[in-house]
């Protein structure tokens, strides 16, 4: 490279560096976030001195879905407390998720915590794990047939019950035409929520479904705006995930719609929107608790032979977070735990 060009590049870098260092922001950013949390970010609870076990957690998380971060935080908190090595893996494709479960069986882990969004694809592999002598607990998805799959316990929300409760509350709020936004296709728990909403609305209103691509914000924005423009009778939008709700806020204003926004599941940004009134309420299934209990219950089984639940689903939700109780939840949400 000729010397003049090298010199030019050097000068450019030299000029940029002080610019970068000098241009700090007085507001926002990591500094502000750490100050707001006041130091503590996780629910710490000491450290067990039992044998070190390895537990594999396999979920159907799509890359980038913040909901699963909260589950992971709960699982990691329990793992830290119980002296457990947590191996977390996920794949939204059921066949690939089954392959990940098989990997865990082959690695001879001490316990498996798994979600089951597609029983036909995943149940057989779970049964193989049980036959191999590995205890399995299930959570978050697959509430209807986890006992047949061989799970010891199930921690989660019955999505049909949650949908029903949400639908009843929507009817009480006076919603006549509800748009249920599904961010993925072929997932039983998402379908169950919308079906529950329809049942809860009963004769008070109708429910329409729309499928959007949950991993692409621009596509979600356009699809929801188009749907709200196409059907002006929609007066309520209920989304099934916090990132989708955040985009729905923009879609509703783009379409000049007067629809009110409700959602399932929360994250830190969504809690702020509930506070500001952009979202009316959220159905919280306490994902932190699901992750935490899954790992903790396996530790209890491994160290003391305990089984939680007595063969019945251990419910972690639904709980409604609305303007009346959002203040209390807010600080935990900022830490990424609610």
């Amino acid at each position, binding site marked *: 490279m000729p010397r003049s060009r090298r010199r030019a590049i050097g000068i450019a870098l030299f000029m*940029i560096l002080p*610019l*970068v260092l000098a*241009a*700090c*922001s*007085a*507001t*926002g*950013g*990591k*500094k*502000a*976030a750490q100050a707001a949390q006041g130091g503590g970010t996780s629910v710490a609870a000491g450290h067990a001195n039992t044998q070190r076990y390895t537990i594999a957690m396999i979920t159907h*998380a*799509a*890359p*980038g*879905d*913040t909901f*699963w*971060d909260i589950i992971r*935080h709960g699982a990691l908190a329990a793992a830290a407390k119980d002296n457990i090595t947590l191996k977390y893996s996920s794949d939204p494709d059921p066949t690939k998720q089954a392959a990940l479960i098989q990997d865990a069986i082959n690695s001879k882990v001490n316990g498996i915590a798994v979600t089951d969004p597609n029983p036909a694809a995943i149940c057989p592999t779970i049964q193989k794990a049980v036959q191999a002598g590995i205890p399995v607990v299930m959570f978050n998805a697959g509430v209807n047939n986890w006992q047949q799959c061989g799970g010891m316990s199930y921690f989660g929300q019955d999505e049909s019950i949650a949908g029903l409760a949400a639908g009843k509350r929507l009817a009480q709020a006076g919603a006549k035409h509800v748009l249920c936004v599904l961010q993925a*296709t072929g997932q039983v728990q998402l379908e169950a929520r919308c079906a529950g909403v329809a049942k809860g609305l009963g004769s008070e209103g109708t429910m329409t479904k*729309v*499928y959007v691509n949950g*991993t*692409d*914000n*621009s*596509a979600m*924005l*356009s*699809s929801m*705006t*188009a*749907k709200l*423009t*196409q059907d002006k009778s929609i007066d309520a939008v209920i989304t099934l995930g916090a*990132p989708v709700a*955040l*985009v729905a806020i*923009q879609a509703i204003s*783009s*379409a*000049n719609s007067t629809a009110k926004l409700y959602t399932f599941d929360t994250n*830190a*940004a969504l809690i702020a929107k509930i506070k500001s009134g952009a979202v009316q309420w959220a159905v919280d299934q306490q994902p932190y608790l699901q992750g935490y209990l899954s790992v903790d219950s396996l530790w209890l089984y491994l160290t003391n032979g305990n089984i939680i639940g007595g063969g019945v689903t251990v419910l972690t939700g639904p709980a409604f977070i609305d303007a009346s109780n959002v203040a209390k939840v807010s600080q935990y949400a900022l830490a*990424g735990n609610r």
Partner: protein
Amino acid sequence: MAQTTEAPVAPPPRADERVGQKSTLARLFARPEAGAIAGAIVIYLFFFIIAPPFRNASSFSTTLYVTSTYGLMATPVALLMIGGEFDLSAGVAVTSSALCASLFSYEFTTNAWVGVVVALALSLLIGFINGWVVVKTGIPSFLVTLGMFFMLQGLNLALTQTITNQVASPDISTLQGFGSAQKVFASSFTIGGVNVRITVVYWIVWVIIATWILLRTRVGNWIFAVGGSAPSARAVGVPVAKMKIGLFMAVGFMAWFTGMHTLFQFNTIQSGQGVGNEFVYIIAAVVGGCLLTGGYGSAVGAAIGALIFGMVNQGIVYAGWNPYWFTFFVGALLLGAILLNTYIRRRAEASV
């Protein structure tokens, strides 16, 4: 008496086809965009008839927004394809750029614009690496950028996870400079009661610039030459290596631009975004008349291709159809558009 034989009558001179005049219509139809424009008109009329909400201006504005988010990237991808190369990492490069800007300015609590500048440097670097590896090793760009695609996809997820312990980028709306950046990259304005997003304007401007570069400048000539036949171009004195690297860096630049729009429009970026979009850009370019082998095509064609994609995308929702039909439609569209393009071009070139 001597017999006189008549000299054989020479046949009337045949017009030399090299100086023949093509009718204006034939010349128009021989342009690379002709098939795409025909297709776009057909699809517009189709959805106009079957989907009443498609007809009004604000719906068209939403369609244009979808079009522009794909069209912004389809333009440099088309230029690259004319230059004879593919870039399969274009989709995730957009997300990488947005994540870089967001994470950098959040972690170091800097002005949002600092993150923007750092992301530009990163995007240009990714483009440079793509181009440099293709040029230096001679490996087909399809494979090089495929490798880069997987690496960027993994880096997006892994680095976001490692740095923030979350899978989505943090909220940067409280940083200084966010408001002004939002005005530049993600604002919208109203024309005659219809809300239009600024990406539409940017898209049209970039298409005009790209078309001008292709058709009116020496660099555009070089792009066609390099795509048509790189050895011949090199023999005539075109700097082939620099052109290819430059084209890859142009894709990187536009990935930065699109990424900045996504960041300042939505504030948080999911780290798994962008996968699959690279094929949409290629589809838009091919539907718009770009040859896969390079050396032929246009930026306007890619813009029309993006418009077709946007219209199909939105038209299906407006028509109230089952959205599962969408991917089937895209595939049928691609085949149909290519057949139409080939047919029109053959007819146009035959009619002299």
